[in-house]
């Protein structure tokens, strides 16, 4: 799985970080989300899918 995150869309809901803290983090200066890894391990796939589903601006897209 490969993740893309559109930071222009991010509204700092923090939902991705709550869903998958091993994969998403937030910048100190403004809280905008960033990826800790673009290719998460198999053990976090379910969490990443949940993160993509609850992102309020659909900024997270997944490629299998």
């Amino acid at each position: 799985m490969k993740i893309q995150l559109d930071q222009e869309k991010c509204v700092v809901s923090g939902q991705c970080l709550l869903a998958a803290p091993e994969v998403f983090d937030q910048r100190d200066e403004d809280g905008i989300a960033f990826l800790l890894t673009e290719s998460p391990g198999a053990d976090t796939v379910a969490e990443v899918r949940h993160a993509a589903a609850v992102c309020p601006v659909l900024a997270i897209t997944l490629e299998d």
Partner: protein
Amino acid sequence: MTIQEFPMARAAGCPFDPPPALHELQREAPLTRVRLANGTTPWLVTRYAEQRALLSDPRISADVRHPGFPAGASVDRHRVSIGFVLMDDPEHSRLRRTVTAPFAVKRVEAMRPLVQSIVDGLIDEMLDGPRPVDLVQAFALPVPSLVICELLGVPYTDHDFFQDNSKHLVNRNASPAERREAFQIFNAYLDDLIGAKTAAPTDDLLSQLAARIEAGELARAEAAGIATLLLIAGHETTANMIALGTLALLENPDQLTLLRETDDPKLIAGAVNELLRYLNIPHGGRRRVALADIEIAGELIRAGEGIIMANDIGNRDPSVFTDPDTLDLTRDARGHLAFGFGAHQCLGQPLARMELQVVYGTLYRRIPSLRLATSIDRIPFKHDGSVYGVYELPVTW
């Protein structure tokens, strides 16, 4: 088919459930026309999937000044002047991003010990005071008020003024003019305080806004408007979740027992999400206007038509939440729409979640015999407000 009036009334004896008419409309179709008090007939969206799709659609606008905007009694026109809630991108995003940093998850977590001490202090005062007590005045309102003081950087000596003026904002006996006056007092106070923080910055949100004014990124009036918006948006909402949530738990004693007997942060976090889903206090719906023709669920929403997303009924959509009218603190309710969806989703949600986790995780453990001091049919509910809740909650122990 006749067009129903919106908003509708809740059923007697079911204070936690959306109006029965909303359940019927949801069963019939994902969206339908309703009639507002001003005679206009915007779309009412009742199902979860369509609410999410429309709230995240860039072809809808939150701009209350648009002639097609479905304004109702629950939309305060004076809020037009106070910032980005009722604006569209890119202006909305420019202003919102000036205040996102303190709402990042880790920054909010760093405030947890402080919130815990505020909550413990208020419970100590309640336990030392007379019984019964109104939980709204003694606890539900002061918690968010004191947290916002800390977030903004309101000096301790002003906390009493801050709490007193907050009460005028939510006083049901206050006239619209009196509420507007309380609002303007806060706006002027925060504007002054931003001035003081410009001269002598401290580590808080108002000082960060002051720095942005100095850097030419924000006008002073914009900064004061943003600070006032954060105060208003984070105050009555959290207070209502505390008081109404407590009442819902007292009426569901098996669920209250779950919460009282756990110190598992995951269970408490899940309980907060479930109470947010179940109670969905912004019961006037999220209101928008279409900027282009939008085809959805076999209907055509035309450019310029109003759209109301009734998230209270969306959160009871049986295709998303099994047995949706049951309060079940152990379910996975993370996908609820109580904070809205799309670019305007609640900015304060990480803070609200944390405050509610501390409150729900502390209050019933420290006062295990907490109970209503009256019968539920004597509790005054905020049927008329833009945010649902209770005006008073007499409790004893």
